């Protein structure tokens, strides 16, 4: 089997953590991977999948747009976004900065900084369809609404913490927390869906 080409958007955020989690996930699955740090349109060429890390969604958006990357990113078949990455995937965003735009690929509505400021950031052991994991929420968003084709992978009370959407040959995975800090389960799951 040919090595999967997995890009990690690398301008800013917890890029190294995602690279490590992806490489470990590849080893666990015994799948050959080529992880690419993405900073330009050229870097997006020929990717099987893209990971959008945690960071500041407004900064990531601006840097992507300055490189003219939004168009080509929308054509990528598999995208996994954590925290800021989930915001970039969402069709609708609450508590936006004035000029904020997203890729608008997933039929979900996300509220930015929904828990409050950093002093409200937290860790919690949560139940997911992949089992129990230690989840880290940092100035985290909430997924407040999902479309009918969106599958929920983790919930806490009424709060949706993780979800996925497959339509046609496209697959998107969005998480409010940062699995890359504590587990490779979600990276393995994402790779297995490609």
């Amino acid at each position, binding site marked *: 089997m040919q090595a999967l080409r997995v890009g990690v958007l690398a301008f*800013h*955020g917890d*890029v190294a953590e995602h690279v490590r989690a992806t490489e470990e996930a590849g080893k666990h699955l015994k799948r050959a991977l080529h992880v690419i740090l993405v900073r330009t349109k050229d870097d997006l060429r020929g990717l099987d999948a893209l990971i959008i890390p945690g960071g500041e969604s407004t*900064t990531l958006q601006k840097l992507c747009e300055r490189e003219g990357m939004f168009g080509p990113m929308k054509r990528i078949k598999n995208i996994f976004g954590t925290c800021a990455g989930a915001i970039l995937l969402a069709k609708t965003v609450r508590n936006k900065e004035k000029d904020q735009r997203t890729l608008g690929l997933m039929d979900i509505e996300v509220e930015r900084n929904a828990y409050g400021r950093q002093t409200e950031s937290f*860790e919690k052991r949560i139940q997911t369809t992949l089992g129990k994991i230690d989840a880290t929420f940092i100035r985290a968003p909430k997924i407040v609404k999902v479309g009918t084709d969106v599958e929920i992978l983790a919930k806490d009370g009424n709060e949706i913490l993780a979800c996925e959407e497959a339509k046609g040959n496209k697959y998107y995975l969005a998480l409010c927390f940062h699995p890359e800090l504590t587990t490779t389960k979600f990276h393995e799951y994402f790779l297995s869906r490609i």
Partner: protein
Amino acid sequence: MTKKTGTFRVKSGLAQMLKGGVIMDVVNAAQARVAEKAGAVAVMALERVPSDIRADGGVARMSDPKMIKEIQKAVTIPVMAKCRIGHFVEAQVLEALEVDYIDESEVLTPADEQFHIDKTKFKAPFVCGAKDLGQALRRIQEGAAMIRTKGEAGSGNIVEAVRHIRTVRSEIDDIQKLFKSGNTRKLKEKAAEYRVSYELVLQTAKLGKLPVVNFAAGGIATPADAALCMQLGVDGVFVGSGIFKSADPKKRAKAIVDAVAHFTDAKKIAAVSENMGEAMKGQEILKLETRYSNRGQ
């Protein structure tokens, strides 16, 4: 299952999310918006930028809470603020204001010449300055979740920032060599010299880098300065006076963000550096009356 707030993972986690970014000093809501628009990952709210603190003299203290609140209202990115070294009540006030990160900063006039703040007692995370590995590890042991190499704030001169990045790097290389050769005795001596636990020295030696995120600061005035720090291995940069003391802050702010995002791409750095107007006027380090970087050991 309960939520745990204020854990070290949560505190250092925010710094991890800021990596590859630029944190800009701002003195009012209008500047904060310029910074956010340029692509800053956070802003540092303070009353005067370091070069003005230098020029004005006198005691520099924590900012007016009203100004911090106005900046919090103006932007959606994290807002940091500075307290004086050892002034744990200023830190309590900043935490009560729900500042996202507290900078226990040598740019303000120190309040305690013996003790830094016990940062483990706070829910808000702290960033602290360091000019060598000993200072960095002492601050981490006190609970800092992020380190910035000090540089010389308000100087517009990159030389001290480079010195401090290189010093920390070479001292980490030294302990890494000791670890690789299994020289426990020497590593223990290092821990005693740095006045920190052996475990912390061992952890750093194993990792080959600081166990928390490390930004550069102090004297960054151009996109090339920022990219230089990045190529020397730091995780991101703080820019103080360099932006709003330049001829065209909007353009310079954006150019520095772009240079950090593409720090190995010289063509890109050339393109963003074009026609930016004058940089802030820098100063020779030897001619400075006060060396902020000598504060806080």
